[in-house]
Structure formats: C-alpha cells, structure tokens
C-alpha cells in the first residue's frame, strides 16, 4: 500500500510529533516497505481464531478497595518541568 507524505503527516499528528519535512518523506517510504512486509499476514485465514492480547491465563485481577500509602504530592511534582500550587503547569488549553 502506498503511503504518501500526507498520510505520514496525519499519523504524526495523531502521535503528536512535529516531524520535519525530511522525516515525513523518510518515514513514508520506510513505513511503506514495512507495511508491505507485514501484509504477509493477509495470506492466513484467521476467521475462526480468537485474538490473544496476551499469553497468561489470567482473569480479571482484583484487590480489596483499601487505602494504602502512595507517593507524596512533593515526590510526584518534583519531576514536573513546571508546577504551581500543587498542580502540573501546562500552556493554555482554552482561549
């Protein structure tokens, strides 16, 4: 399947990466050849197979709803590039 520079731009927007023109061209070309390779899966008839999201035979793992210690606000915010009054600080979201 052909992947254009515009297709790559759409995917880059979904992934929130501000790729350069050169990267868009390069990735469009490389994605095309990788997709061509993985299209091999279309050879198989999988209509009667159930998907395996992961391998262990686990059912829902539940725990009692009890209060436990967690990290302090200071420890969590200590890694934030910007914080203010106990909150993460980000550029303006709403005009």
């Amino acid at each position, binding site marked *: 399947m052909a992947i254009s520079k515009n297709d790559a731009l759409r*995917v880059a927007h979904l992934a929130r990466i*501000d790729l350069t023109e050169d*990267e868009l061209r390069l990735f469009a070309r490389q994605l095309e050849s990788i997709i061509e390779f993985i299209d091999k899966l279309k050879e*198989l008839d999988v209509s009667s197979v159930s998907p395996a999201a992961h*391998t*262990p035979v686990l059912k829902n793992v539940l725990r009692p709803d009890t209060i436990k210690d967690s990290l302090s606000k200071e420890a969590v915010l200590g*890694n*934030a590039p910007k914080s203010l009054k106990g909150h993460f600080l980000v550029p303006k979201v709403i005009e």
Partner: protein
Amino acid sequence: MKLWEFTGHELLEKLAHQEITQEEILGALDKRREEVEPKVKAFLRFEKTPGPENLSGPGGFQGLPIAVKDNICIKNRPVTCASRILEGFHPPYDATVIQKLKAAGFSIYGQTNMDEFAFGSSCENSSYFPTRNPWNLECVPGGSSGGSAAAVACGEAIWALGSDTGGSIRQPASFCGVVGLKPTYGRVSRYGLIAFASSLDQIGPFARDIEDCSLLLKVIAGYDPKDSTSANLSVPDFLLSLGKDIKGIKIGVPKEYFSLSADRALEGIAQEVKQALEEAIEQLKKLGAKVQEVSLPHTEYAVSVYYILATAEASSNLARFDGVQYGLRTEAVDNLTEMYKRTRQAGFGSEAKRRIMLGTYCLSHGYYEAYYLRALKVRALIANDFADVFKDFDCLITPTSPTPAFKLGEKIQNPLAMYLSDIYTISINLAGLPAISIPCGFSSGGLPIGMQIIAGSFDEEMLFRVAHCYEDSTSWHKMRPKI
C-alpha cells in the same frame, strides 16, 4: 586468573573461605572498568564504588556488584532509557526487582547503555553513544540490552539485569558470549520497568554461567501485587536443577529455524551458526537427550506479528512522554498541542519516532482490524504451535541469532533488516515462554555464537537443567575476550 574473570558463585565461595575480601573484589572490578570502559562504553553512568557499610547486605550476595539496564527505576537515581526525553527524571520509587536486589545484598554498580526505549538490536539507537562488542570493537554488542551484555562479558560487572521484549536479553548475550535468560511472562515483576510493549516485556538476568544465572533469577522472580500480570506461583530453588543428567529428555529442533530465509531482506542462517548448533545438538545427544525435528508452522509470520503488536503497544505506552509530568519540555509555545508535538519531536530519536509512527498507523481508524486485530489472532496461532510441541517435548533448541555480531553501521540504515535479526527470539515473547541463550561456539572471526533453549510456560527449571548439563561438558563459557 584475575579476579574479574571469576563468576559470582566462585567469588562468593572465596569470600566464604576468607581467601579474598570484598574490598579486593571491588578494587579489581574498578581497575578492570578503568581499563576497558573507554573502549567498550557499556555504561551510561556509574555509582561510586559502594562503601564498606553497604557490603554486608542481609541476602548473602555480600555487596557483589550488579549492573542494571537503564530502563529500570532506581529511587532518586536518573533513568533515561537512553533517550533525551527522560532527561532530568529521578524516579521517586524503586522497581520491585531493585528492592529485591537491595534486600539480597547486591551493590547496584551502574546503569547500562541500551537502544532508546529498547528499540533496536544493536545498541546503536542509544541517544548518547553506541556500545561496542568486547570481542571485536568494530562490532555491535547486540541489543537492546547491549550495555548489560558487554559489561558482563568484559568483566566490568559480575551480573547484570536486562529486559527482553523480542530478544533484547538473548541476542546480546549471544553476541557477547554470556548467558542471558528471558523468564516466562509473569515470572518477574515489571513494576518499575519503563514499558515498551507491556504484553511482551520481561526483566531477566545476564551472567557468565548457568549457576550465576539461576542464582539471580531466584532473587528477582516472584509474585508482586503491584504488577497485575505477575504470576502468583512459588519460585522453585533453581539450584536444584543443576547437576542433573539429561538422559531421556526430549528435545525438539524446529525445522523452520534452520531453513528459514524469512524474506529477500535476510540472508538466512549463517553457515557457521548452523554448524555450531549442529555440533551442540550432537553433544546433547551424547549426553543422553533424545533429539527430534519438530515443526512450528507459523514461524514465518512472527516478525510481522511482532512489529505490529510491539509498535502498537509502544505507541500507546510512549504517549505518556509529553512534557507535562516528567522529563524534557520544549518551552516557548503558546498552546498545549504544540508543546506536546515539539517536546516529542525534540526528545525522541529516529527509531523511537519510526516505531511510534508504525504503531499509531496500525491502530488508526481503518487499519485496526487489518493489522492489530489480525496480528493478535496470528499470535494465538503462534502460541498454539508451541503448546502443541510442548505436549511431546521438554524443550526446544534453536540458534539465538541467525548471525554472529554484525559491524557497527551495517544495518542501521535498513530498519527491516535490523528487525529481521530478531527472527529466532520474537516468537518466544509472543508465546510468553521462557528461553535462555548460552554460548555454544565461535565464528572463524572469533565472535561468540549462542544457542537458545526454549521451555514450556514456567519451566525455567528445564532450561537450567539442560543448559547446565551442556555447559558442564563444554568450555565455551570459560572463554573471556582479550581486551
């Protein structure tokens, strides 16, 4: 023989007999590091040699040093995944495996280089510098846990931890001539491991022989309520699996792994690797194993399945690196979306971007069913192939990698060729099984060759039993690089 050449259990025995002191061991390793680290560059950063007060941990490992891959969180120490996007991040907690190492009395000596976010098979995708193979400095150490493998191979560390999503412990172990084990999915807690592909990732040990490897797995394995996919099973005493014979053990050799040329892009299995494996199989027969050819019919689809699922999971996991909670942030933007986009553009390297793009594409509207859902179904077929074979066999033997270590720069421009170098290891992650790579020979150019042993779910004991019996009858594991 120099002190750095000994294995961990040999050193512990010498300590017990008071033939040497902890200070002598640490001094010898420091000296070794000064000699070889400028050439190999296995570490992203070191901790100063721990002082004597740290040497008497309660667990019996007496302060012996261990290196840790730089994607495992250690409280208040930097961790980067060899990425710029995590610059400045200091985890506020220890990974479960780190708590266990500390409790067992290990000294955490330094954090090792890797492909950025474990995306790669050569360590060349580190955002800092490439690591080199101690057996030949022009060659890669493998990846993504290349720094951990190289550090153990050249005697900078006695043990190391790595992580394995598609071969990232086993392939560098094979390239560097050491032992590397990927435990069964769920055997070791992933809490505090920075996630690449959550349904495939496992933390595992590097060591220079099977006994050291089994000692370290025993320390890090076990149920952890903080990882909801960790298995609530008791951990066997793996030492009991050593020293047993393998008479009558049924070993399967998957024919697809020896005939496979996978695709036009791959040259297929190197003659020297094939020959080393054939000799190893003969040796296993001499030791009394019953060896028979088996078939894993969906092998040829594994690389495709893996690169859909692993990148889909990675694109989702790496969405958290957005400049808000930790790490890098690009300033001078006036809205949130631009801040995300420019931060991620500045912070991620080329392979990380490529994989995020591929994963996002496979999950995007209109392609989800054709790629992601189909890949999950083929994953079930691949897991069933193994389940069928393990009804009749105790373990499987394959090469770890189709070739010995390749040269730096050889595959970096061709992502698909790099992906295909994982062809023998990725199916095992897709099926969630345990597998180990052990040294089984050398190429004519003096590069190590690795043999992979694969066992059924939670049967690491079988891996250790077969591997130790083979190791005991050969001397590949005693070879050390002349660096």
